[in-house]
């Protein structure tokens, strides 16, 4: 039987745990306290029990309808941008030069959008997509297409999706490029000798190499797009109507706009749980996907 691991070294992270307690755990506890109470300010709170959670999870209630709709929009947004950015990122990484002076130029150009802060990206696209002074908006509307992200549903979604694809496809591409660079040349030579087609080279050599980096890329992009706030806030302000309002925009509206701390707390706890469990699933898959077979005798090693 394997010798059990001594975990005492974890005590060395105690100082960090104290800092985390100050900036994360105490505020989180406060949020939990808020979620079962109502307040009109002045630190006066009134017990509300599970009332906010009942409202939140009831699609017919005002809060519930709003939350579930925003959650639905968030999930759709994440799925749409992932289904565009991942294949596109792989394609771009396959087309990038493997050696020569082009490599550096390519890497720098690819990394540029990643360096632009979220609110600046929002501002760029807000202006770029305007129909009066923006190049994109002006061109598209002069082609005879009804394009106006301030009052038309599809234009608004098209703009924020295009913006996200512009901003983050490079991340997937760069990750995949790093994954591709790590496969030895011998693999490709063997494939050439066997007369393998481009597609089977991709399927049998390149895609398995990308497995891990793609998981990381998908995790990063999913989490980032699922909590997206700044870009739609700057471009559409969550509109037209509520059509680009994600959970985080709604959360800020409820907490800081309406000062409904109880509702906002209940909402953020549920939002947090969804993110926590999604992260756990991704992390577990990521750390176990290529793990070597478990040791034979570890099966009952816990006891």
């Amino acid at each position: 039987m394997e010798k059990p691991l001594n975990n005492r070294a974890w005590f060395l992270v105690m100082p960090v745990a104290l800092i985390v307690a100050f900036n994360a755990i105490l505020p989180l506890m406060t949020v939990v306290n808020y979620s079962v109470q109502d307040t009109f300010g002045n630190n006066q709170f009134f017990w509300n029990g599970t009332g906010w959670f009942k409202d939140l999870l009831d699609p017919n209630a005002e809060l519930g309808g709003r939350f579930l709709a925003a959650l639905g929009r968030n999930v759709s947004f994440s799925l749409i941008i992932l289904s565009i950015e991942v294949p596109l990122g792989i394609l771009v990484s396959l087309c990038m030069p493997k050696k020569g002076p082009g490599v550096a130029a390519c890497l720098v150009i690819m990394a540029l959008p990643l360096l632009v802060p979220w609110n600046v990206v929002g501002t760029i696209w807000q202006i770029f997509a305007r129909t009066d002074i923006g190049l994109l908006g002006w061109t598209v509307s002069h082609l005879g297409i009804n394009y106006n992200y301030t009052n038309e549903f599809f234009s608004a979604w098209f703009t924020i999706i295009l913006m996200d694809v512009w901003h983050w496809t490079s991340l997937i591409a760069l990750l995949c490029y790093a994954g591709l660079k790590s496969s030895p040349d011998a693999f490709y030579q063997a494939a050439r000798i066997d007369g393998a087609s481009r597609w089977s080279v991709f399927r049998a050599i390149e895609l398995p190499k990308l497995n891990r980096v793609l998981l990381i890329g998908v995790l990063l992009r999913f989490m980032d797009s699922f909590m997206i706030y700044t870009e739609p806030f700057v471009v559409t302000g969550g509109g037209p109507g509520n059509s680009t309002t994600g959970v985080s925009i709604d959360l800020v509206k409820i907490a800081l706009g309406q000062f409904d701390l109880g509702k906002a707390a209940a909402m953020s706890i549920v939002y947090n749980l969804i993110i926590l469990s999604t992260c756990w699933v991704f992390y577990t898959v990521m750390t176990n996907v290529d793990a070597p077979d478990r040791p034979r005798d570890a099966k009952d090693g816990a006891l």
Partner: protein
Amino acid sequence: MDIAWMAWTWQTGIFFACIALCLTTMTVLAIRYPENDHYGVLGIPTTRGDRLFLSLVGSAFIHLLWIGFVGANPLVTLAGGVEISSLWLASILSLVYASAVFRWV
């Protein structure tokens, strides 16, 4: 020190005390009885801490789903007007779920 902004209630106080007790117990157990990874039905290596995490997150979802689909109406009213919410059934379900996680995951 004024902590009125934290809006404590005795109910959430008990809740967090239980969580703190769980974590302390886990720490003591980890020192007294160190352990190896355990492979259960999910086929992933888990420690006691992982199983506690899964139990807590799962219990949160069980309670939320209960509120969403069953509601939290009073189950019985005791003498003196004390109402027992049906949400306690979700808590019992969570305990069953947690023991299943500790036994099989």
